[in-house]
């Protein structure tokens, strides 16, 4: 049921007043938006460790090289077991354990992008993860996340004045500890909840040992309840969880099943969405992809560690999509997988693969452009241990496509969020956008504690801010997340203030102004342009 379209076609009774839908009444727009279930949702599935893309998305036309003993003979999937993908002339296939994602592909609900990476690769798990999360160039350190910056664009006043009647829910939910990807200039844009669903513990805590049946247990239960109540989104998340459900029978059931933990996370996501939560972004993860040794069973290369990892991801995404379809929210969701890097072309002597570069990405949802984007890599029979799959698409082009075509961010703002211009790829079905009025409204939500006027500006601007009294700090932060100026750092009476901000010596580009008033923080974007 699409509540939004329902509202636009019939009179709505609000507080005894009947409002009939005629075009663009601002009141109706606000009402219908606040009740909307047409909001777009993105689910980010992070595969920690660096997934071996060459055994995930397999170039069947390269077997002459791949089967060589000096390439990856000891881990290669037998050609006849590979799940051949339609539309590729049988040249490309999926790992045989990925049957559910294969089904999605065959139903046009999976977009596969070959060779995603970035120039000048980094092979450290941690640095590479930061690059993927921040969306920075590999030689730049950016201390905010691409999704966090998007959320800062969509909801510029967050977290001040949130939750509110229009957005009662977290704007993003991270299942597990917080990640850089969801931070915006030091402000966490996501609410963390935990990774089990029984009971749905909402304090964002890994600390879930059941309270004992003793005094300590009594106090732990008490404190956790305080923590839950303190979490200002706790009640709305719980309300959605209580209202929502999982109806798919496909989620892994036993803790020994591949993908079990990821399944519990994705089941929470499905349950919350079906319960009407309006959260934009969910971020989940699953680990173990760092397969330096024994990634396949030596007797049967289609089985073993990596096969189970891929089966887990595929089964869970399949189950989630099944849930979404059965509950009717399939058209509202889009998901993507990413890992910090792919792995090397040549396998090692321990039957594993070492840290590599480009990787395939999977985008799932009923509104994707199904198919495989990009070409099979050419595997040189003379590859060395240092050889890597070449990059075909920049990962930020994938981000740009999702932000632009799914969340409908206009091009100029896209450049700000992604720090420069990246071309979009045909990943999202045309016409999937939500009305811009939704964004216009989101922009106004919450309380506006700080902004610059004029903005954009040439040399200097004026920062206008409001403090609730007490210690107040106003900082100017550059694109890398470094504080370049502290304009205010003192005790102030509650009230509204102006402070001059001179950036004459700074290069043109994007800056941020951040206010901190005790525990309150808010960040706004500034744009310095050449005069």
């Amino acid at each position, binding site marked *: 049921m699409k509540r939004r379209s329902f509202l636009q076609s019939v009179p709505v009774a609000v507080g005894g007043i009947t409002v009939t839908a005629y075009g663009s009444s601002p009141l109706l727009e606000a009402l219908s938006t606040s009740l909307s279930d047409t909001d777009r949702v993105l689910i980010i599935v*992070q595969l*920690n*460790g660096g997934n071996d893309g060459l055994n995930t998305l397999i170039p069947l036309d390269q077997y002459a090289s791949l089967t060589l003993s000096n390439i990856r003979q000891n881990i290669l999937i037998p050609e006849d077991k590979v799940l051949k993908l339609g539309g590729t002339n049988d040249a490309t296939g999926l790992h045989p354990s990925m049957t559910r994602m294969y089904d999605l592909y065959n139903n046009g609900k999976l977009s596969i992008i070959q060779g995603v990476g970035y120039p000048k690769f*980094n092979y*450290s*798990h*941690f*640095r590479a*993860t930061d690059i993927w999360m921040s969306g920075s160039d590999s030689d730049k350190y950016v201390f905010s996340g691409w999704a966090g910056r998007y959320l800062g664009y969509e909801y510029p006043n967050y977290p001040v004045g949130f939750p509110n009647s229009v957005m009662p829910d977290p704007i993003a939910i991270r299942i*597990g*500890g917080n990640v850089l990807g969801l931070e915006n200039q030091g402000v966490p844009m996501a609410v963390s909840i935990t990774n089990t669903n029984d009971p749905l513990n909402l*304090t*964002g*805590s*890994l*600390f*879930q*040992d059941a309270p*004992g049946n*003793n*005094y*300590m247990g*009594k*106090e*732990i239960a*008490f*404190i*956790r309840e*305080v*923590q839950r*109540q*303190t979490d200002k989104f706790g009640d709305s998340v719980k309300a959605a969880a209580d209202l929502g459900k999982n109806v798919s029978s496909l989620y892994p059931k036993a803790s020994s099943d591949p993908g079990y933990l990821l399944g519990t996370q994705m089941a929470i996501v499905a349950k919350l969405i079906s319960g009407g939560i309006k959260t934009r972004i969910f971020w989940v*993860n699953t*680990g*173990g992809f*760092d397969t*330096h040794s024994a990634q396949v069973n030596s007797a049967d290369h289609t089985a073993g560690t990596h096969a189970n990892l891929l089966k887990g991801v595929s089964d869970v995404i399949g189950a989630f999509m099944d849930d979404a379809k059965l509950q009717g929210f399939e058209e509202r969701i889009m998901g993507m997988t990413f890992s910090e890097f792919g792995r090397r072309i040549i396998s090692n002597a321990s039957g594993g693969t070492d840290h590599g570069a480009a990787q395939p990405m999977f985008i799932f949802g009923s509104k994707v452009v199904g198919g495989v984007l990009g070409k099979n890599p050419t595997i040189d029979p003379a590859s060395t241990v240092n050889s890597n799959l070449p990059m075909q698409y920049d990962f930020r082009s994938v981000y740009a496509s999702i932000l632009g075509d799914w969340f409908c961010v206009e091009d100029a703002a896209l450049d700000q969020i992604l720090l420069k211009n990246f071309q979009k790829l045909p990943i999202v079905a045309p016409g999937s956008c939500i009305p811009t009025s939704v964004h216009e409204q989101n922009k106004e939500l919450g309380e506006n504690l700080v902004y610059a006027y004029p903005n954009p500006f040439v040399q200097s601007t004026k920062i206008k801010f409001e403090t609730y009294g007490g210690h107040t700090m106003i900082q100017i932060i550059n694109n890398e997340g470094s504080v370049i100026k502290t304009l205010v750092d003192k005790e102030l009476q509650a009230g509204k203030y102006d402070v001059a901000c001179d950036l004459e010596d700074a290069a043109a580009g994007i800056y941020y102004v951040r206010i901190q008033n*005790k*525990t309150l923080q808010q960040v706004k974007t500034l744009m310095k342009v050449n005069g």
Partner: protein
Amino acid sequence: MGSIKPYSGSFGKPELIHLLRRTLFGVSKSDLNYFKGRSLNQVVDQLIPATPNLPAPPVRAYYNNADPTKDNIEKVGTVDQVKWGETWVNTPYQTNFAANPYGYRGNNLKYWMTGMQLSQDRSVYEKMVLFFQTLLVTENSVVENPHSMYLTHTLYRKYAMGNYKQLIKDITLDPGMLRYLNGQLNTKSAPDENYGRELQELFTVGKGPGSGYTEDDVKAAAKVLTGWNVISSEKVNNVTMNIIPKRGFNKNNHDTNTKTFSAFYANTQIKNDTSITTFPSPFGSIEEYRAWLEIDQLIEMIFNTDEPSRYICRRLWNYFVYYDITPEIESEVIEPLAELFRLHKNDPDQLQIVLKALFSSDYFFKSEHRGCMIKSPTDFNVGMFRQFEFPLPNDSKLEAQYAMWNQVRSYVFNAGQDINDPPNVAGWPAYYQSPSFHEIWLDTSTYPQRKSAYESVAKNNYAFSFADATKVYDGVNSPSYKFAVKMNFVDFVKRFENPSDPNSLIDEAVELLLGGTVSQGVKDQLKTTYLLLGQSTDYYWTDAYEVYLANPNTTDPESKRVPSMLQDLFTYLMSAAEYHLC
């Protein structure tokens, strides 16, 4: 009835941690190492010593203008009456001072209180001082005299492990208490029952099942207590000078009639004994001495009942162990402990004996009494700084030292405990308010304050820019100038047994911060999330840590983030419900 059952089980690390968490503000790795290998008796002997000497008093570390040439807070003309770094406790304010310093001194005393807690030695002393502050309350904001507050504190300290009855006798005529509970207004013609009531209800007898004092007893006690007042000024050479407040006595205001008490007090009669004709120092008159002897009888009469012993032992159990006093605790702990309290009621080491018995008892060590106490704001915040062995400035950086003490005090204040200003005469509700008791400390407003404090401790650079270098009170080359300090988690984990092993590091961190009841599954998740950053092989941490230790300026991308990984880990550990328990 017999003596309290002593603990006879093994005294290992979990028992040591339990004992230290309850007697100290926070347990550090150094504390654990210090007591390692000692027996329960040895540890208890150290933790509960005879009452120590008074610490050095608070000193001036404040000004009313950041520019010393403009500052006049302790000045007459241009002359400092209390110099920077010297104590004010012997120098009452006089009207010729450029400004009244009592507000500054009152705050200074608060910072100092927190400072004493932060720099506590390995004994229960500071926790007992705070116990008395919630039991025998006065309030800075009511007394409005820092000298009185300091004198009352001196009594708390003097009797911390001493004789409770004598403490009550002293505090009854303490100037701060005379002012706080209207003793100074209690006269023969207009009796004020305030102190007579609280003396019985809150300080000694209590309202337990065995309590039986009557309203008439309150009135009779009030009559015994008539005639006393507070002297705050004296004429010196015909000039009225403020003095450190002291008790005074006006014989015309004292009711010399015989006071008769109820059957609860064995129908005791307290008479003004006119047969006594000589008076010792420091009494100023025979009437004053006789009135004092009435008070002495009153307090002896109260302590001749069994109730004060039970009441105080319940308060001790509540303060140090848990708030739920079951019939079993009443009969197996409170009664025998109260008997011990009574047995030693005239001994100068009474509380030392009682506390030793409590902290060596079988019931104290029962598993159900471990990790179940919600930390007070003081225990949470002071304990956090002590636990992390946070590098606080010493008194060579006086300005910074008091500023940091005030910083910690403000965390305690924000979390609902205003040191030297309990909410009312009953003290903090957490110690008496049924049925929630200690749970009162935590709610949706105080919890974020605790969270904000631990996040600050983990992440803040505490920087003080005290004016400019030529205007710093500690001196021109003051070490306080631009003093800055930040938690260093690498130094912190260096004290651990084997910090390069992520499993061992997590085990020790969890044991120290959370008391070690966290499951292996959660520990594994903590390790994977914070030390392996989602990877699954232990050597990612080991390599990174060892490279970092060898070269803290390493540019290796994994290794150089070791400090922030530890910072994130410890910040996260403090988000556990268990971190609020001790």
